[in-house]
């Protein structure tokens, strides 16, 4: 298990600051949620952490070791990312087997067959999907394949970018349950980005709220549930979520 520490992270695109001095800490084996609206910079933070964007300033360290703009090969085994849209993140002309074997091949990992079989087991997919193409699977199954692809690297950190927002609520429940179970079984540290406060609260112990590139508040899920929040934006997001959940509880 490793912890993640982010200090004064700044990211600018052609002079325009998208992320303004964001700092947070995720304990080893913990889970941290980032919520915010589109354009608030939440995914930009996640992409910088994953090493997908090299133009950032500040300090990012995984397990106490600071990482630079360019990461070494070991880093990409240690941290894996799951993307929002399982329709877009899987190669349409590759079988599940091919998709899952890519990473072990790149990293020179042995026993690829066993690894794929185990990864499919981990995400509760039948072995029979192994030689199917993504278009032959449902949205939920595809997202499971994407999670299996992340797990096959035996990572310690999973970076989840809206992993369920393209799915139906019934499928969302299955994927969220799966992610909760995997974190326990594999001792993973999670950072999850979502616009859905209820989803983040279900998954994470602590939540950071972003607005216009700033992390305006960090609050424990327990406080968030009680409504013990200080920033107006957090309060607004919470009120919207509660209003839809239980219309009678809040006066309109």
């Amino acid at each position, binding site marked *: 298990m490793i912890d993640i520490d982010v200090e004064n992270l700044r990211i600018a695109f052609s002079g325009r600051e998208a992320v303004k001095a964001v700092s947070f800490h995720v304990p080893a084996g913990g889970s941290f949620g980032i919520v915010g609206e589109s354009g608030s910079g939440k995914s930009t933070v996640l992409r910088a952490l994953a090493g997908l964007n090299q133009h950032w300033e500040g300090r990012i360290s995984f397990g106490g070791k600071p990482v630079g703009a360019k990461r070494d090969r070991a880093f990409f085994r240690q941290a894996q990312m799951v993307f929002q849209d399982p329709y877009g993140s899987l190669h349409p002309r590759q079988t599940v087997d091919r998709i899952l074997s890519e990473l072990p091949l790149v990293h020179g990992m042995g026993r690829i067959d066993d690894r794929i079989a185990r990864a499919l087991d981990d995400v509760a997919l039948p072995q029979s999907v192994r030689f199917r193409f993504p278009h032959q699977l449902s949205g939920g199954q595809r997202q499971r394949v994407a999670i299996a692809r992340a797990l096959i690297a035996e990572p310690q950190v999973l970076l989840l970018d809206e992993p369920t927002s393209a799915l139906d*609520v019934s499928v969302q429940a299955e994927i969220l*349950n799966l992610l909760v179970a995997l974190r326990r079984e594999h001792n993973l540290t999670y950072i999850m980005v979502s616009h859905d406060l*209820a*989803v983040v609260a279900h998954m994470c112990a602590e939540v950071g709220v972003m607005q216009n590139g700033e992390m305006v508040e960090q609050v424990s899920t327990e406080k*968030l549930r009680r409504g013990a929040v200080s920033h107006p934006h957090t309060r607004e*997001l919470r009120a919207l979520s509660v209003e*839809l959940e239980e*219309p009678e509880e809040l006066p309109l």
Partner: protein
Amino acid sequence: MLVNIENLRIGFPTRTGGLSEAVKGVSLHLGQEKLGIVGESGSGKSLTARALLKLLPPQAQVTADAISFDGIDILAASERGMRQIRGKRAGFILQDPKYSLNPVKTIGSQVAESWRFHKGGSRHEAREAAIDLLDKVQIRNPREVSKSYPHEVSGGMGQRVMIAMMLAPDPELLIADEPTSALDATVQAEIMRLIDELVSERGMGLILISHDLPLVSHFCDRVAVMYAGHIVEELQASELAHAKHPYTRGLLNCMPSLIHPRDELPVLKRDPEWLKS
């Protein structure tokens, strides 16, 4: 009765010569009220609404005992007749304004075009009317916005523009197919409130199609829950908490809740029995 659909079936021919039915005998009635249709992807909710305006792909095979809009028989209507209904008497709002607006024309000219198509009049009148319509959908400084292009405005603003275009001919029915799923939570609330106000003010009927059960029950009078081409349950929105069908209950149950935390989310167990009926 504004809309009457009896026993609607929509099927698509399969490669092996069979027919795959996506909508299996749906009946709906709508007056001047707000009806929500909820269901998962593939449940047939959008197809049902599109059948009402004859907007289905040509290979779709539609049969029904009756489809009528304000007494007009849609099944027998010609394309020419349909043009008198589409846009003019029944407006349609789609999910993502990014794809439904023309990217190379200014917003003002698109709204003006829609107004002029239905109402006639000079270019100048249309332009003024467009600005007035943009104002009605609560766009601040509508004159400025009318000169901008779709890529220059936000998603919420784009959706307001779509609503403005739809309002031009004063329709009697509004069909909104996932109008806010591409938008942020705060914007979603604003747009839904706007639709709600306009519908109540003008006495329109509303069919709101969404996968979001809480959202629909919040803004509609009545909710129809669709599963695999059937309406499995139809109930007053206020009665949602007392839904009887296991599918509706399952959908409500499997959502994570901010106020009532749970260790594990109950997973919806699909019963093959639901497919019969």
